[in-house]
């Protein structure tokens, strides 16, 4: 409930005296008094619409029946919400709505019996009654019929008879069921700023559609699924759900697919995921997700090609073996290739518990520091340095009055963060977007910069140099001297960005009180990664001289930070303690001597094959196909699917999906977030830490034994501070390194950083797993990429 000035006023509602903040609506007031007013078009979090008219009330000294959702309260207002007159009008409204809806089941005398006994097949092409509707059981119309005790509809039924739209892999649109509450239209435009949905036509023919009659994808749909979440009827429904039925349980968990770590609600029936989104009946709580969080987890969890038993590679054929056999074979080979012969590549889509277990197993049981993630960032110390900056909260983003977003395709990589940028834009923040190619964020930007690919470091130099002069910033001498050497003309040629454009950026930053830099992941995947980081830090330093400047690093995968922090790194032990420094903390904790020599990175493990004495690999997830993997002596892959890379593996172990897992991740805000299992993994699948414990037991190693996920969590928290200190904002001054900007454009090697595939889960390509999706992403790339 919003309160502008914190002033409370008193109103009387159904005889109850209550105090509500000024600016509340009558509906807010009723809710706070615990009084139910039926609604349909209203939805918490969206602007009131006033369309359905169900929330009408009577207010003393007001003529007619004002709608509670749109009427602000005034002092001493007397409101009545339930008079027989009101209920009868409400019944009339519902009757009218249902006169254009297949209502037969709703008022059918045999409703109960039918529901109990009728075999429901939900794959009919048109919905002709509740028993054929995906919304059955979770439908707000059904609730209202019940509440208003509607027994009879005095109008002949009219059926719109429009074709159901099934043109995408994720959700179906059957506008025969639409009651035109406008929630989908509003959320798509007002909250997601996707601008896809609109009302089309007029009068009784009004319907929801896309503005120019295009398909969803042509109209720019981002498949965020927000519209599906908010629809009160079966008009919009998840495809997945139509196979399953009404959810009976729901579990709150965290999306691991990108580092935003959205809170998600997984609605299930039996051991099946029905859909993912808000809790049933709470259409916007928790907040909406993006395409990946909303639609992918159910698809991958229940994927028909999932492997559910350990497999052994017999000359290219996969044969099922028992876990005992698998562990025996693995142990035999791990004995043979321990120490530096051995390495582990893990995934940043995994819990901190698994990450910690993997790296500990590698170091403690196998005696190797060859532990890394895939893919990796070029700058190996990046996360340690990132850790030096105070994290910025996702919901703080809209509080900034200027945002400089560079090197990212955030609408795809971090849709929810980009959504907050869109919001900030609509709240009049100045948005400056810079990247090597156009993307959707440019629609929400005041300054749009497209620099030559690979020239982001020089572009940042241009900014820094002008910033220094414009704001008269005192840098340490080495930096000042370095900046003097920059020739603006040369820099301009190198980046393609004119001096005037740079000036405009500086001008739009100048009046801001709070500035946010959002650094995209492509900045750290290029060879100038180190330069980029240093330059950004210096810009951050400069901006902090006149504004409050926050810095957000768009790290990619869900637990990228957490996994690195818990030791998935060849150079760092948990907590970023350097292997080379011979830190004793972990040696003592684990009761062994950790080798003070840095391990091999993912690239080093693979690209030097054969011949670097590296012989054996444990891979969690998947890697891009790399034929050198063939040179490995022994290769175990734990993954949900058989992939291209699996052909090099000797043993393939099934894996949990995060929807089945227990544990934690650390997201982009460096908040610890919980992953909860919503469904059970198929019977023969074991979590990674458990497999490792079994191997360890077989190897007779007592220092690595876990029976529960929680034991690992307790071990981590006992030794590692997971609550990140948010109070001290450290501004790091990193030494300015000077890229050579004098090489003429023609001779410059253009470094094309390919757009990373963000549709990966533990290295597995979702677009390969969900065939329709590939098409979709290709099209998307065509239009927005």
């Amino acid at each position: 409930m919003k309160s502008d000035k914190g002033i409370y006023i008193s109103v009387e509602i159904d005889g109850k005296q209550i105090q509500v903040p000024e600016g509340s609506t009558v509906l807010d007031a009723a809710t706070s008094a615990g009084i139910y007013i039926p609604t349909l078009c209203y939805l918490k979090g969206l602007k009131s619409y006033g369309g359905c008219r169900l929330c009408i009330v009577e207010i003393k000294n007001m003529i007619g029946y004002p709608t509670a959702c749109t009427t602000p309260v005034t002092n001493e207002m007397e409101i009545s919400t339930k008079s027989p007159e009101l209920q009868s009008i409400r019944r009339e409204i519902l009757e009218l709505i249902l006169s254009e809806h297949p209502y037969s089941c709703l008022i059918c005398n045999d409703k109960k019996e039918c529901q109990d006994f009728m075999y429901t097949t939900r794959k009919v092409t048109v919905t002709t009654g509740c028993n054929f509707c995906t919304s059955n059981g979770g439908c707000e119309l059904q609730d209202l019929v019940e509440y208003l005790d509607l027994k009879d509809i005095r109008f002949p039924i009219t059926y719109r008879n429009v074709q159901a739209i099934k043109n995408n892999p994720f959700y179906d649109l059957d506008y025969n069921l639409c009651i035109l509450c406008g929630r989908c239209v509003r959320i798509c435009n007002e909250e997601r700023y996707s601008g896809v949905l609109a009302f089309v036509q007029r009068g009784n023919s009004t319907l929801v559609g896309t503005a120019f009659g295009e398909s969803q994808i042509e109209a720019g749909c981002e498949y965020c699924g927000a519209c599906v979440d908010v629809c009160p009827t079966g008009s919009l429904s998840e495809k997945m759900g139509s196979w399953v039925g009404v959810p009976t349980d729901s579990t709150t968990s965290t999306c691991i697919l990108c580092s935003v770590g959205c809170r998600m609600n997984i609605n299930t029936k039996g051991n099946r995921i029905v859909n993912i989104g808000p809790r049933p009946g709470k259409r916007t709580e928790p907040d909406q997700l993006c395409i990946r969080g909303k639609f992918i987890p159910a698809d991958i969890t229940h994927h028909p090609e999932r492997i559910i038993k350990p497999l052994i590679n017999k000359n290219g054929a996969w044969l099922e073996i028992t876990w005992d056999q698998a562990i025996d074979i693995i142990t035999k080979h791990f004995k043979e290739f321990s120490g530096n012969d051995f390495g582990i590549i893990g995934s940043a889509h995994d819990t901190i518990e698994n990450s910690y277990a993997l790296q500990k197993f590698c170091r403690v049981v196998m005696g190797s520091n060859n532990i890394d993630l895939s893919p990796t960032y070029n700058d190996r110390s990046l996360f340690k340095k990132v850790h030096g900056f105070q994290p910025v909260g996702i919901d703080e983003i809209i509080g900034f009055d200027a945002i400089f977003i560079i090197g990212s395709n955030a609408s795809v990589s971090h849709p929810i963060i980009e959504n907050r940028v869109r919001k900030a834009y609509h709240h009049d923040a100045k948005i400056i977007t810079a990247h090597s190619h156009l993307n959707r964020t440019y629609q929400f930007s005041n300054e749009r910069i497209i620099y030559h690919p690979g020239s982001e470091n020089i572009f940042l130099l241009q900014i820094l140099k002008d910033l220094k002069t414009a704001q008269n910033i005192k840098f340490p001498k080495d930096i000042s001297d370095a900046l003097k050497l920059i020739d603006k003309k040369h820099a301009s040629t190198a980046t393609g960005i004119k001096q005037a454009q740079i000036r405009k950026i500086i001008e739009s930053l100048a009046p801001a009180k709070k500035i946010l830099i959002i650094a995209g992941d492509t900045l750290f995947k290029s060879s100038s990664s180190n330069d980029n980081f240093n330059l950004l830090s210096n810009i951050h330093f400069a901006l902090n001289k006149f504004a409050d400047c926050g810095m957000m690093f768009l790290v990619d995968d869900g637990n990228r930070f957490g996994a690195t922090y818990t030791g998935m790194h060849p150079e760092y032990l948990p907590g970023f303690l350097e292997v080379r420094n011979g830190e004793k903390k972990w040696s003592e904790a684990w009761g062994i001597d950790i080798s003070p020599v840095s391990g091999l990175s993912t690239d080093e493990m693979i690209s030097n094959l054969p011949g670097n004495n590296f012989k054996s690999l444990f891979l969690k997830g998947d890697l891009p196909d790399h034929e050198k993997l063939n040179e490995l002596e022994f290769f175990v892959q734990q993954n949900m699917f058989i992939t291209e890379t699996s052909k090099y593996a000797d043993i393939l172990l099934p894996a949990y999906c995060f929807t089945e897992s227990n544990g934690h991740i650390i997201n982009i805000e460096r908040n610890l977030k919980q992953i909860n299992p919503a469904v059970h993994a198929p019977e023969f699948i074991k979590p990674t830490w458990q497999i490792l414990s079994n191997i360890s037991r077989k190897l007779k190693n007592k220092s690595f034994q876990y029976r529960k996920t929680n034991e690992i969590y307790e071990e981590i928290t006992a030794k590692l501070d997971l609550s990140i200190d948010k109070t001290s904002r450290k501004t790091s001054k990193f030494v300015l390194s000077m890229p050579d900007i004098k090489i003429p454009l023609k001779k410059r090697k253009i470094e094309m950083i390919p757009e990373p595939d963000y549709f990966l889960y533990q290295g597995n390509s979702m677009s390969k797993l969900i065939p329709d999706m590939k098409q979709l992403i290709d099209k998307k790339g065509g239009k927005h990429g």
Partner: protein
Amino acid sequence: METKVIVGLGSCGIAAGARKVYDKLEAFKKAENLQFELKKTSCVGMCYREPLVEIIDDTGTYLYGEIDEERALELIEKHINQKSPVKEYVVQSDLFETIDNEFTGDQVKITLRNCGYIDPENIEDYEAKDGYRAIKKIAGYSMSRLDVIQTVIESGLRGRGGGGFPTGLKWKFANNNKSDEKYIICNADEGDPGAFMDRSVLEGDPHTVLEGMIIGAYAIEATGGVIYCRAEYPLAIKRLQIAIEQARAKGYLGENILGINGFNFDIYIKEGAGAFVCGEETALIASVEGQRGMPRKRPPFPAASGLWKKPTNINNVETLANIPWIIQHGAAEYAKYGTEKSKGTKVFALAGKIRRSGLVEVPMGMSIRDVIFKLGGGIQDGKKFKAVQMGGPSGGCIPAHLADTIVDYDSVNATGAIMGSGGMVVMDESTCMIDVAKFFLDFTQKESCGKCTFCRIGTKRMLEILTNITEGRGEEGDIERLEELSYQIKDNSLCGLGQTAPNPVLTTIRYFRDEYEAHIRDKKCPALVCTKLLTYEVVEANCTGCTVCAVNCPVDAISGARKEIHHIDQEVCINCGVCFTKCKFDAIKIS
């Protein structure tokens, strides 16, 4: 003085062929090297006499009606060359009486003062008729904003867009809301079918609308002006564009207008796609902002939060056209006309079964009877006056026995109709009132924005019931069901469209309930309009057996040999009426 020949080139005139007349005159004048000044003007209101050509010479003014190309040349020959006016074509003259004097005699032209008299594409013409004097008066006498507002309040001017809200008060609210940006919008959507008052003003005297807006902008401190004009009015838009250019060139628009320090104001035209609901002010604003024209709940009223969330004042074209006159002549002069609560004049578009259809401007307080019978010349073809529909789709039907109702907001409201924007559709005994109600409801039903339940679905259900009634499927209880739905739709709709949509139905039920009952109980349409309820029979006495009916009947319902009396098989007949129109011997009767 050089003789002037002025052709009326309003949309209606052009539709009647005036453009051709003008072109003909122009070509002829050139070819024959004739000495007269050929000019254009717009609609003078006598639509029933189009095309109109006025000749002004030393002797006086002669307005000729129904002038086609041939007659135009005849006029040149006789009136100009031979100096003998062609009296039989004159519809109006300052020298002698004509039958059309009745049409103009009781009119008082304030809004339409220049329409049909000046060239709307020429700012000097407007200036010559005291144009832009009002704003000059404000600048010259340093009238304060509050003085201007006070004058408008005292004039008693009420909004002519339909609502009838006092214009001065509206300005005062907009003035009270302080903001660095404010807007004034001229509502030229005119979505009411059959209404063309605003179009005529825009086509005939665009500068007076601009001047009204400029004065309004001064009064409320608006920084920008928008004219929201339906795209179906291309001529109005073109003339407005020309007028705006001219006003800019002369400094009536722009910065520090007429030397009033800090008074910066300019006007843009926004073309509307022609949805009726876009005339509703919040929908209009949404449409100007590029969104779908959907009304939203008020408050906040536009005066507090309107276009781009800034204080905004919306006025109708006709409202604004009155403003310059009021400022120039003073509030008292304006308030001399009209009744206690409705001051000034009102423009009406007369249409339907009336002898003289067209545009009239009458002082408030004139009786409907006078408007129809004196100005309009009564009913066509000597038929009986049955009712007049006022206020278009939001209005209602006033029956003949209430014809003495005077035109003023409150008197018209009391009948259940509304003054509306000024459409008057006259109906005679051959009009079926249920058919009329159905027509208007069909319109609003289709034009509903689709937002709220009652308006979107309720009107559709009502229409279905009306259709059933007119097609012989009416049932007992339908009237009550219609009334119940009507009141719920009126009470519970979000915007004016829904709130007034049932009015045509309610008023026809109120005054013509017996007609409804005849349709429902006896399955009869007393006005013989609802084809499904008619029976076609052969009048044996008249039938010559010519076979024309049988040959033309699309379903072969008519039998009979040549020269013998024919028969219609009622089972087969589909009531199309072809036989009735084809029979030359009045041998088919309808009942």
